[in-house]
């Protein structure tokens, strides 16, 4: 045994460094020098407003306008929106954009309610913008995450979906709170507000006008009709408590000045893509029949281009009938000019660079809301009067110099108010004009058509979805895996995740 030689080598290396020095400086090292952990209300508001309106404008143009026969993006390809065949790949953009901006508006409220940065007006504006975006979300998709949404920072990674009814009722609470907060008129940084330049009174009026838009939207549901109608009455009758927009200047519009960062988001659409869709016959034929000043070149045009920048075809405005069958190959005639085109040796006036396309909610829409409420007998006041004011504001928003008598204009166009008509005829008349007032306003034409069935759109033979106006967008496909349990619960509660499933307020 002793002949066994043990050969043992042991090497121990030990760098004994005190523990504290190993982590010294880590806190400082992990403080990002390029970004900040704190934000002020005035830093958050403008970028969030611009991003939200940007997303709304792009989908107004290539989604709402296609469904609602403003334009026809002519193609025989599968999945065209104008044929009611849009697919789930349309769903992600708005869902993602809107929830991203909600993070900013909720954060704005949080920061403005903290002691050091306390400001009632920023809180109120944040609530109005949240209400606006949540209503767009639920009107587009139906049940969506609301109470648990935008709480990733609080470790809610799979938010539950909420019923549309509960969402609406809570939005109303937000708008009440906003009206209260804004009544103090606390000043804000003027440069942080590209919509009203710090005019708090106007924000308050917009909030209450939005309140009416949303009350009216769910007024057809028997379970809430009574409380909704009495709220509408209260708002309309107590103007001291609920001031409303009083003229076009008070419209909520993010006006594109052309100076960065307020250049029109339509500039991100390539010129040739901008010109690609044809004007739909439904949209243009009415304007031609009425001799609408907004397409009048000689009197109200600029350098040979009408106010809405629509190109004539052989001296006339001619559209394409939407919903045609693949293979029918109609010819594109009128379309929206792009600004690179030359008319009368000047750059064409184009909606691509127009200041008014950043529409959030305009005064004309409010008048048509009131006209409908009056026609239904919910509020006193003359429906005719509201209707005429709406039609007038709809024109003068775009053409302030238009000074003809609105009643003369309407009767010449044979769209004047008829007090002896049936309620249904009155509603139809209001909504035909409202359709033009909602031009450029996110997806409102589509929402209102789903609610009322007006304006009555011609149905082409190539329509999918059984020829029925699609009732929603599907949820983005990735939500099926990122939020699987709640997604399944939402589908079970609302119905199949397809474009024909009606949302709560649309269900009979």
């Amino acid at each position, binding site marked *: 045994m002793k002949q066994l030689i043990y050969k043992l080598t042991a090497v121990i290396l030990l760098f004994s460094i005190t523990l504290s020095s190993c982590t010294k400086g880590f806190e400082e090292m*992990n403080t990002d020098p390029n970004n900040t*952990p704190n934000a002020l209300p005035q830093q958050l508001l403008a970028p969030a407003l611009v991003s939200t309106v940007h997303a709304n404008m792009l989908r107004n143009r290539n989604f709402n306008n296609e469904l609602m026969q403003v334009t026809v993006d002519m193609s025989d390809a599968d999945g065209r929106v104008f044929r009611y065949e849009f697919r789930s790949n349309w769903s992600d953009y708005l869902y993602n954009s809107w929830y991203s901006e909600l993070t900013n508006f909720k954060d704005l409220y949080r920061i403005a309610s903290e002691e050091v940065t306390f400001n009632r007006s920023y809180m109120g504006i944040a609530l109005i913008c949240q209400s606006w975006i949540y209503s767009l979300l639920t009107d587009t998709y139906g049940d*969506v995450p609301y109470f648990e949404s935008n709480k990733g920072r609080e470790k809610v990674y799979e938010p539950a979906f909420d019923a549309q009814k509960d969402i609406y009722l809570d939005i109303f609470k937000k708008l009440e709170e906003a009206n209260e907060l804004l009544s103090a008129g606390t000043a804000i940084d003027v440069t942080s507000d590209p919509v009203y330049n710090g005019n708090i009174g106007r924000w308050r009026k917009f909030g209450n006008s939005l309140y009416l838009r949303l009350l009216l939207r769910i007024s057809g549901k028997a379970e809430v009709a009574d409380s909704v109608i009495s709220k509408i009455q209260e708002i309309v009758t107590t103007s001291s408590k609920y001031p409303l927009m009083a003229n076009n200047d008070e419209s909520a519009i993010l006006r594109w000045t052309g100076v960065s960062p307020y250049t029109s988001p339509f500039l991100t659409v390539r010129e040739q893509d901008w010109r690609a869709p044809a004007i739909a016959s439904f949209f243009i034929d009415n304007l031609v029949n009425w001799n609408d000043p907004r397409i009048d070149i000689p009197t109200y045009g600029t350098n040979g281009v009408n106010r809405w920048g629509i190109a004539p075809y052989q001296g006339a405005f001619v559209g394409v009938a939407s919903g045609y069958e693949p293979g029918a190959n109609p010819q594109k005639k009128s379309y929206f000019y792009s600004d690179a085109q030359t008319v009368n040796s000047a750059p064409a006036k184009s909606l691509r660079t127009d200041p008014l396309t950043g529409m959030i909610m305009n005064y004309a829409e409010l008048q048509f809301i009131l006209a409908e409420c009056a026609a239904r007998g919910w509020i006193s006041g003359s429906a005719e009067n509201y209707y005429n004011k709406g039609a007038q504001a709809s024109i003068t928003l775009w053409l302030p110099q238009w000074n003809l008598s609105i009643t003369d204009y309407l009767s010449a166009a044979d769209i004047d108010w008829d007090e002896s008509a049936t309620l249904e005829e009155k509603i139809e008349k209001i909504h035909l004009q409202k359709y033009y007032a909602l031009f450029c306003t996110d997806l409102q034409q589509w929402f209102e058509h789903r609610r009322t069935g007006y304006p009555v759109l011609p149905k082409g033979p190539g329509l999918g979805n059984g020829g029925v106006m699609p009732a929603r967008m599907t949820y983005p496909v990735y939500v099926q895996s990122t*939020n699987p349990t709640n997604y399944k619960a939402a589908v079970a509660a609302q119905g199949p995740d397809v474009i024909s499933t009606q949302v709560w307020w649309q269900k009979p």
Partner: protein
Amino acid sequence: MFGVITTSYKEVLYFDLTARQDWASVLATPNRTENSGFFYPSANVSLILSDVMKMPKQIDYAKVRFSASGVGSGQSKPYLTAYNYTSAGSLFSGGLSNPSLLANPDLRPLRTISFEAGTDLKMFKGRLGLNLSVYAGTTKDQILERILDRSTGYTRMVINAGKVQNKGIEITLSGTPVKSKDGLTWNTHVVFFSNRNRIAELADSSVVLRLGPVGGGQIVAQVGGSMGDLYGRGYVRSPDGQVVYDGNTGVALITEEVKYLGNVLPKFKVGFGNDFKYKRFRLHLLFDAQYGAVAHSLMHYKLAEQGKLTKTLPGRYNGIIGNGVVLTGDGKYIPNTVIATDIDQYYRSHFGIDNAEGSVFRTDFIKFREARLDYSLGPNALKKLGLQRATIGVYGRDLFIWSDWPMFDPEFGTLSGNDIVQGFEIGQFPSTRTMGVNIVVGF
């Protein structure tokens, strides 16, 4: 801090122990440093069998080894632990937005514990060598970015992703089949790797790691699944797996929900290299192969959708009957006899934007990776030229690919941040075939 103990017994048995403590600065936050430290030990035993016991005479050397080791790691990307606003763009003076990537102030270091057993064998006087190892390990808290439902307010978040079990085998066989007196030598080696992983634990029922460009394509981690599981929308199939077509239009039906489409990580990879030497000539040939993975091809989707692939020619003028079944009103599947006349829609149903499955293909390949033939000048010729050495050769890389992948090159990597992502080809340039002549002159 690092410690190591190395011992040996009679130079046949070796035993190593290491212990290490690291602190990764990226895991600290501006407010704390607790999670930044991690400790990891390892132990290795190896025994030279051929010195301990009598071996058959063909075996020159045999060694077995076992090891157990822990490895920890932070991350290389900084600032993932603290919530910071991002600039809303230089056009807004001082404008800020909330970030889209949600920071994780509780981020912990990744820990891997693995056990490995292996053997080294040398046989026939060094003419044949075998190196084999098998391993099994568990990785905890891998640091990954998870895709979130945007209704959380964020696009992605940094997470510690549960527990993943890995097991695998690596075999290297090297030999010299020919070594003749007249100067011909042939050395060859084969390398084989195979790895399987299984997700044992996750924070949530399903964690989306990556989104593809079309058809809801996505890589989803689920307990019991593997890290590279690819999901997406695909064909509606009958119980026996046939594609179901629309009974009226003859186009393929696409599922509303995402389904499992395969795994993007190869089951095994093989390398096969050969070196021949004859007098002053040297020839080097290298082949690579991989097997068992799938990937989604954006290029295939795009070209097929635009009708630029020859596979979209059939039926362009007279319509086509898709190979599959239709579902009858009474719930029976019968062979499809409907002629699809809208050929654009027909091919879109197969390869369009809604169908991820239609553009998912196997990435199996064999590549003739490298060939090289050199001739070196002899001492006499060198002397005449006054040179130390001179070699002339021709070489080629990526010479041929044998693969069913439809779009040029099944080997692609998508760079996303610091990670190379497999599974989604997004129109990368394929690797190029290189050929050249090489002259090396030494003075």
